[in-house]
């Protein structure tokens, strides 16, 4: 008690090293997880050729020899890419539009109601959204596009877009709101209309933050499991009749395969290894996405997203 200064300084040292340890630990944790997934997955290629993993067009792990089993990356990867790309195409215009509206157009009173409501959407559990998707979006898609079944990549994209929108809106809105008022005043002073000000001054200034927002939204979409299992139908098909045909038919995603099979698989066999290799691929995809988002965020420092 007599030397409070000394006491605080030593406490500061402890806190500082604690923070350093947790910082290093979080990096180490990511590396360890990747190493573990890789270690469990790689032995697959002792039993199953890498070439077949990369070129096999089917995923039928219980198919008996000599025909099977089939552990094809392609149908899974294609499904993930297609559903996520579709979700981006649907979500981005809507979410960016909503964010611009919230930040620059809507009056305060509306903003105060709408923004928390959109944020609330992000908290709905995915299994609940998946259930709504299976019961409502699937039949809707089927009737709208006159399909044989609503279980399709399109339905998956719509539901995933719905899940990505809150993330994109919230973070984009933060980025837009962080653009200094002087930028807006300046554009008005130069005789620009409101639209010119928003489209040529405010949005470009907030662009890095908005790109990061989109990447985070995409990250949520590509990693989502329950929803895609419930609404995409999980048929591991590669496209043979054009993009639209593929988009309106069932697909199987990496996460869907992992979610459906990982719990039931026998420990250590080829199927188990193959699932871990899918995990490796998924890890790499999300890593690249995060890396790109990070680049976008850091491109222009001190802008947006504080």
């Amino acid at each position: 008690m007599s030397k409070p200064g000394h006491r605080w300084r030593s406490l500061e040292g402890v806190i500082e090293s604690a923070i350093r340890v947790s910082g290093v630990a979080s990096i180490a944790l990511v590396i360890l997880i990747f190493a573990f997934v890789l270690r469990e997955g790689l032995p697959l290629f002792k039993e199953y050729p890498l070439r077949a993993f990369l070129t096999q067009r089917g995923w039928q792990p219980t198919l008996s020899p000599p025909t099977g089993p089939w552990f094809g990356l392609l149908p899974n990867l294609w499904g993930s890419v297609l559903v996520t790309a579709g979700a981006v195409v649907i979500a981005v215009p809507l979410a960016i539009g909503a964010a611009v509206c919230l930040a620059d157009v809507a009056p305060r009173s509306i903003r105060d109601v709408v923004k928390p409501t959109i944020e609330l959407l992000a908290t709905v559990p995915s299994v609940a959204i998946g259930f709504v998707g299976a019961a409502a979006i699937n039949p809707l898609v089927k009737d709208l596009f006159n399909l044989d079944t609503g279980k399709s990549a399109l339905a998956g994209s719509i539901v995933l877009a719905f899940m990505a929108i809150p993330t994109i809106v919230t973070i984009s809105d933060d980025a837009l709101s962080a653009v200094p008022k002087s930028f807006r005043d300046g554009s008005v002073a130069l005789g620009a209309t409101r639209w010119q000000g928003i489209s040529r001054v405010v949005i470009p200034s907030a662009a890095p933050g908005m790109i990061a927002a989109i990447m985070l939204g995409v990250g949520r979409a590509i990693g989502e499991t329950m929803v895609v299992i419930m609404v995409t139908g999980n048929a591991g098909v590669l496209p043979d009749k054009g993009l639209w045909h593929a988009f309106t038919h069932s697909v199987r995603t990496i996460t869907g395969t992992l979610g459906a099979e990982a719990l039931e698989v026998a420990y250590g066999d080829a199927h188990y290894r193959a699932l871990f290799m899918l995990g490796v691929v998924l890890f790499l995809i999300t890593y690249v996405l995060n890396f790109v988002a990070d680049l976008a965020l850091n491109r222009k420092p001190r802008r947006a997203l504080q």
Partner: protein
Amino acid sequence: MKAKMWAAAVIGLVVAAMTGCSAPKEGAGSAGTGTQTLTVKGSDTMVQLAQAWAEEFMKQHPDIQVSVTGGGSNTGLAALMNKGTDICNSSRPIKDEEKDQAAKKGIDVQEFVVARDALSVIVNLSNPISELTRDQLKDIYTGKVTDWSQVGGTPGRIVLNSRETSSGTYVFFQEHVLGKGVPFADNAMLQPATSQIVQTVAQDKGGIGYVGLGYVTDKVKAIKLKADAASPAVEGTVDNVMNGSYPLARPLFEYTAGAPSAVAQKWLDWVRGEGGQAVVKRLDFVPIK
């Protein structure tokens, strides 16, 4: 605040230590005078069933330790011949060659039917189809037939629904309808749960799916099946499964090498009795009586 946290931590530790110590003691108590063990090995289809049996059985017979492993019916039968397991689970009857092989080793393999596995094939309510032969069903699921008009229905694309690959039902269907080593059509949709199959078939006019016998609801139509073109069409009911006339069903077996030991006999009696058969029902298999 801090003091409270410490107190909580200490209490936590003590409780953990106490439960940690008492658990093995309990085990040792019952193990004391000769715990008997029983190994059950074989069919993957039956693994979950056998594990559920083991849990219930051990509750009622704390002096018997049952360990259940899968590996497939082949593995189980091989283990039985090598005395590697007390009981073998098999989702197929033993072959004559296997019986001969066992006889050469002086083993008289005993067979017990312990449960039945049966599937219903369902279509949309608006579908006029009311029966299919097994070959037609196979052609539909391998993708050889893609339109309902090819099997006597009204024109329209067939939308295939299947269970996930991890499901025993999927494996049963693959082996029993398509044949071993015959792949499903790649556009067959793999649904995570039976309820999803029912829902999808109820929504899609061209939908078809297979579900456990107990899962047919009034939102879908279960069709009759024919073993071949000349056989009668049989409805999927428990009675028809039991009298053997329904084609999409199979008995599930347990085998012992020679007459069952006292412990194995206890197990078999229980499994085939009321308690065991209640578990069979709970796991959506068909009971033997």
